Every structure is written in structure tokens, then in C-alpha cells.
């Protein structure tokens, strides 16, 4: 960096004279070489351009549109007639006054935290297992996990719904066959907690592969000698994990926690397919609540306000981790 920085002013001033002095471009070798230097200097930005365009199109514009919509009255009538009615913060006030919004928000945060904890625990265990496995089994586990990860969310959720179907589901059949219990008509979706259990299981099941494979990749970078030394010092399995693996993989853990938290806060497809918020709205989470406000009762402005609040919540929930992550990254340099 230092070398480049000191060289920079010369190049720039030379370029300035070149462009002013010979606007039509010249044959001399000097300026041409400098031109290449300049192109090289800008090249990274040109290479960034496509992704910037994509990000602005796919992220910045929708976000902008979301925020502006949240300050408009946009019911079905305004949507179809393309009317723009600004209402200030009325939508936000309506949301914040809604008792159910707070219940749903709290429920969403708790649900996400439980799912993240379960995913991290199971993912870590799978990663540790993979380290011990032979080559063939490890390949089998990896492929299996990739398949689970690659399954489209809606398909996975539909399969889980069928697995736990009260009449035709394989889970009830297994319980009835293998245990003295008769669960041939046991319902998983008639009350809140069993419904949440199936939902959470589906979410966690599909989140494990990413966590496990990432952690496994991290584990392979830890030299075996450290564990050998730890063993000689008399450390057991738990001690080795806590004192060796955990601190060494801390950056990876932090990234995984923040990513999982973001994903689990915005669970939608699984919820829509499996319970659609039922029974009696008891498994309603923030994303579906917003969807119902928008597409259900056609109050798109209020729904947009709810979505903005959700973005803020997600940001706050993950800001801590992102900060720590950046700090860890700086320390590593």
C-alpha cells in the first residue's frame, strides 16, 4: 500500500497534463503507457460496476420503494387507481398501537433465538462428527447435507407438513407402531407448541447443513498438533472444544450466528406452508403478519411500515454481531 500511495500523485499529475496537452491522444509511448496505468487504476471500479448495478436494482430500489410506501395510504383502491396519498407517520402509529404487533414481534424474536441456538448446537455436533468420520462416511454426510440444503424451502415445508399429518403422516404411524401410544389421530397442528415444534424442526433441519459445512471447513484449518498438545495436557473432549476449537473458530461462529439470526427472523415460506399462522394466529410471525396486512386485507402502506420496522429490528439484532465481527476481522489483520 505504501509504495502505491507514494507513487500515486506523480501518475495523476502526469495524466492531467497529458489529457490537457494532447486531447486527441497521441502515438508517443510515454502517455500510452500512462494511460494503461490509469485504466489499471480504475479497473477495480469497472469490475465492481455490474454488482453495484445489480445491488441497486435488487436491494436499494426496493428498500427505497418500501420506505416511501410506508408513508403512503395504499389500499387496494389506491393501488389499482395508482393514486399517491401521503399520510406522514399514520401507518407507523397504526402499527405501534396494534397490540398483536408487539405479541408477534416478541414471538418472532424468541422463535428466531431458539432456532439459532438449536441450529448452532446441531451444526457444531455434525461438524465435529465429520472430523472423526472416515472418508466414505464423510462424503455421504456431506452429500446428504447438501441435498437437504438444496431442497427448495416450499418443498421441504410441504414434506414436513405431510410427515406430521395427523392421519396419513409417517410420524404418527411410527409412534403408533413402535410405542404403546395410539397416535393414529394425534394432531400436531391443533395447538401452539406442537405446531411450533414442527415449524422449528423444519427451519432448523434446513439450516444445519450450512452451519455444519462452514464449521467443518473451519475445523480442518486447525492443526492437529494443537489437539495433541491439549490431550497431553490432560484436556478432555469438552475442554478441547471449549478451550481450543471455540476460540479459534470464534469469527466463524459470530458470522454464522448473525447470518442464522437474520434468516430465522424472516422465516416465511415454511410458516406459510405448514401452519399459515394457525391455530387461531398462535404461530403468527412477523413476516406473515406483514404479508397478511398487505395481501390479506390490502393495507399495503401499513404493511410497508411493519416491514420497515422489521428491517430495523433485524438490523439492531445483528448490529452487535456485525460490530464484533468487524473488530475480529481487524484484529486478524
Amino acid at each position, binding site marked *: 500500500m505504501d509504495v502505491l500511495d507514494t507513487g500515486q500523485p506523480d501518475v495523476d499529475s502526469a495524466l492531467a497534463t497529458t489529457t490537457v496537452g494532447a486531447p486527441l491522444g497521441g502515438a508517443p509511448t510515454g502517455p500510452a503507457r500512462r494511460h494503461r496505468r490509469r485504466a489499471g487504476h480504475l479497473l477495480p471500479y469497472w469490475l465492481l460496476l455490474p454488482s453495484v448495478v445489480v445491488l441497486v436494482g435488487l436491494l436499494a430500489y426496493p428498500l427505497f420503494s418500501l420506505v416511501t410506501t410506508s408513508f403512503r395510504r395504499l389500499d*387496494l383502491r389506491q393501488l389499482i387507481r395508482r393514486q399517491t396519498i401521503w399520510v406522514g407517520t399514520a401507518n407507523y402509529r397504526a402499527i405501534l398501537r396494534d397490540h398483536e404487533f408487539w405479541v408477534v414481534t416478541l414471538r418472532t424474536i424468541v422463535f428466531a433465538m431458539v432456532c439459532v441456538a438449536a441450529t448452532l448446537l446441531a451444526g457444531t455436533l455434525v461438524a465435529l462428527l465429520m472430523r472423526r468420520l472416515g472418508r466414505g462416511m464423510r462424503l455421504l454426510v456431506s452429500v446428504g447435507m447438501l441435498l437437504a440444503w438444496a431442497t427448495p424451502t416450499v418443498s421441504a415445508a410441504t414434506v414436513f407438513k405431510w410427515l406430521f399429518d395427523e392421519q396419513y403422516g409417517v410420524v404418527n404411524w411410527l409412534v403408533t407402531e413402535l410405542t404403546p401410544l395410539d397416535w393414529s389421530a394425534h*394432531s400436531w397442528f391443533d395447538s401452539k407448541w406442537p405446531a411450533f415444534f414442527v415449524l422449528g424442526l423444519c427451519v432448523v433441519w434446513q439450516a444445519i447443513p450450512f452451519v455444519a459445512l462452514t464449521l467443518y471447513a473451519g475445523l480442518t484449518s486447525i492443526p492437529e498438533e494443537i489437539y495433541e498438545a491439549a490431550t497431553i495436557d490432560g484436556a478432555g473432549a469438552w475442554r478441547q472444544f471449549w478451550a481450543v476449537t471455540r476460540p479459534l473458530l470464534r469469527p466463524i461462529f459470530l458470522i454464522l450466528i448473525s447470518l442464522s439470526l437474520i434468516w430465522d427472523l424472516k422465516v416465511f415460506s415454511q410458516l406459510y406452508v405448514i401452519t399459515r399462522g394457525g391455530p387461531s394466529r398462535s404461530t403468527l410471525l412477523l413476516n406473515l403478519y406483514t404479508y397478511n396486512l398487505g395481501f390479506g386485507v390490502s393495507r399495503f402502506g401499513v404493511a410497508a411500515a411493519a416491514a420497515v420496522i422489521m428491517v430495523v429490528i433485524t438490523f439492531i439484532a445483528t448490529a452487535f454481531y456485525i460490530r464484533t465481527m468487524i473488530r475480529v476481522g481487524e484484529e486478524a489483520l
Partner: protein
Amino acid sequence: MKHRHLIAAGIAAALLGVSACGSSNDAPTGNNQAASQPKEITIWLMNGSAPDSVVQAVNKEFTAKHPGTTPKIEIQQWDGIQEKTTTALAGNTPPDVLEIGSTLVSKFADSGGLADLTGKKSDLGGDSWLKGLTEAGTLDGKIYGVPYYGGVRAVIYRTDMFTKAGISSPPTDLASFTAMLDKLQKKFGADPKFSALYFPGQYWYAALPFVWDAGGELAVQDGGQWKGALDSPQAQAGLSTLKDLVTKYSKAPVNGNENDNDPATPMGEGKAGVIIDNGWKVGVITKAHPELKGKVAVFALPGKSPGTTAPVFLGGSNLAISEGSKAPDLAYDWLKIMAGTTAQTQLATDGGVIPNSTNLLNLHAKDPILSVFDAAAKNSRSTPATPKWANVESGTILQDMLVAIFSGKSSVADATKTASEAITKTLNS
């Protein structure tokens, strides 16, 4: 000089082209009309509404009249239809003709998404339209939805199972209906999956007759304000009756609905004694189980007092033209053919639905199944006539109430109170 004008006009048109995309309401004028006649009009029909034979006949008649235009039929699923229609009507190229469930017409009409067809009523033979469907298609005295077909639910059963259970004739009141369920339960109840009455918990269409028969209402209008009325003593009594039946005789998922847990499936498999469903489900059952042909029969849901039938929900659909249609005239021609006598006769015969005109109600007279549904339709009701009603449906207020009642999570009194308050809030919001 002429040429120069044309060129200037051409350049102006090219410059305006981009912005013109946004405003599509400019009616084509003069010679342009023939040139800009669309090659295609899009028609949304609901899954299961019209048999292929009817649609093809209508399309054939349409293309004979308009050789340059192909009617493109897109079949839609009922599940999530409100969201889909909303998105489509708000878009730049909405479908030209839409089938809309009768209870949803006023919502989309109110939003300005549907074309006003009031002036076309006599041209369409509107004087003989079914009353319930006409009301459903009307908002503030203007017609937006042309009656397409009607449907009511009745009790469907299997004659072979009734014979085995020793039931000789259909029940004539609620008490004998319960006695009939007892007999079925006694005969087939050894199978833990057998339901004498298969009733998925969220099936609110089938719950309404019990509310209405007991004298209850969904909502009542009082001085311009709507008020949820499910917490009235009458409505509570009706729902208590239903709760007793469901908890005693139904093994259907309490949190299930009639789409995911189609009552026709257990009926075909012999796991259901009776179901409450539409006429066309008879065909669904015999198609999946050809050996049951001729063994599936129906009777109207009996009422509390002997000899009466319970008022049933008049379902069905209306046909509408989107306000944003690029070819409203062509759309109207297609709609007129589908709503006309020929297509309606075929729809009633091939599709087994109730046709849109009272003149055609004798078509089913000789059919032992369809005539029952037609008779039941005479004692039919609809949902409250307000554009906001659709939000009660999409807010799953009735479904939530029924699940709370059947699962025992809430008492009938508490659940109906919650639902009534939610309905009041939704209808007046």
C-alpha cells in the same frame, strides 16, 4: 405535405411511446382499431368451474366471430386467489375477463379494478339472473360481476354404506340427522380413522347453515354501521350444536381446511359416513373410485324443525371485465357467450352446477343428484353485502373461531365474542 405530417406524427409517437405505456386508457380510435386488435385476450377461470367441453364451445363461437383473436384461458387455484387477483388488477396487463368468487366481487369492484357493466344488463338477459348472484355482483346499484354459476352444499353419502348401517331413508330434521350419524358410527366406528361426519375444522362454508338455521347471523347492519353478530344467543346455539357433532363424529383435522383435507377423499375411501359438500364433488368421488358409480347420493342438510332444510351458503362465481383491459369489447363478447343460454345450458348439464338464469333451473329436474342441489339453492343465503367482507375471509376470522371452538381452546361464548368484535372492526375499518 401529407408525408411530412405523417413523419412528424411518427416521431412524436415514438417519443411519446415510452410514457404511453403508463396510461392505457386511451381508447383506440378510427382506423387504428382494426390494426391494433389484439391477437389474444386473457381469461381467468377458476379450477373446477367449467368443464373443458364448455370452454371449448365458447372459444369456438368467439373465434368464429373474431377470427383474429385467440381467447387464452388461464386456470387459477382458489387457494390464494385474492392475492393473485389483487396483483393482477394492479398490474399493467390485467386479464381481460375474470371469474371472481361471488363473495369477492364487491371488494374488487369497490377498488375500481372492474368495469361497470350496468348498461349491458338487458343485453345479457339480466332479468332472469339468479337473485343471490346478481346481488353479489352489484355494488351501490351498479353491476360489476355478471352471474356465472351458482353452487350450494348438501349432504353427500354412499348408498352402500347406508344400507350396511341399516339407514333406510335420509333424515328429515337435525335430531334424525344425529341418529343417522350414530348408526354410521356404530357400524363403522371400529376403524379409528372413520368419521361419521367428516368436517375439517376451518370449513366455515359448511358451518354457516348451522348458524342460520338456529336464527343467527354473521353480521347485521345498523345505521350504516356493521356489527358482528356471531355472539348472539341464536348463533351461539347453532355453533354449539355443530361443535357437538364435530367433536363426537369427526376425525378430520381440527385445524384443517376443505382444500387440504378434501372431504371427498375419505368419502371415496369409506372413511367418512357423510360429508357436506358441493354437487361437483360427487363426480370427484366417482372419478377416483369408478366402482362407486351410482352409489353416491345426496340429501339437503335438514333443519332444526322437522321437514325443513337448513339455509345453505350460496356460493358460485361471477364474470367480470377488468377496468384495465386493453380490449374491453372483445372481453365483453367472450363474457356474453359464456353467460348466454347455450353455454349455461351446457354448463348445467356437463358441469352439474346451478346455471345463472332462473329460466334454466328445470334442466336438472330429472337428475336425482343435481335436482337436490337446485332445491337446496332455493333456501340459500350469502355473506354480508359489503366490499369489506372479503377482508373477513382473508383475515381467517371465521376459521380461527371455528378452530378455537372445536379444539376446545375457547368456549363458544368467548370464541364468538372475539370473532364478532373482529368482524365489526374489519367491516367498519
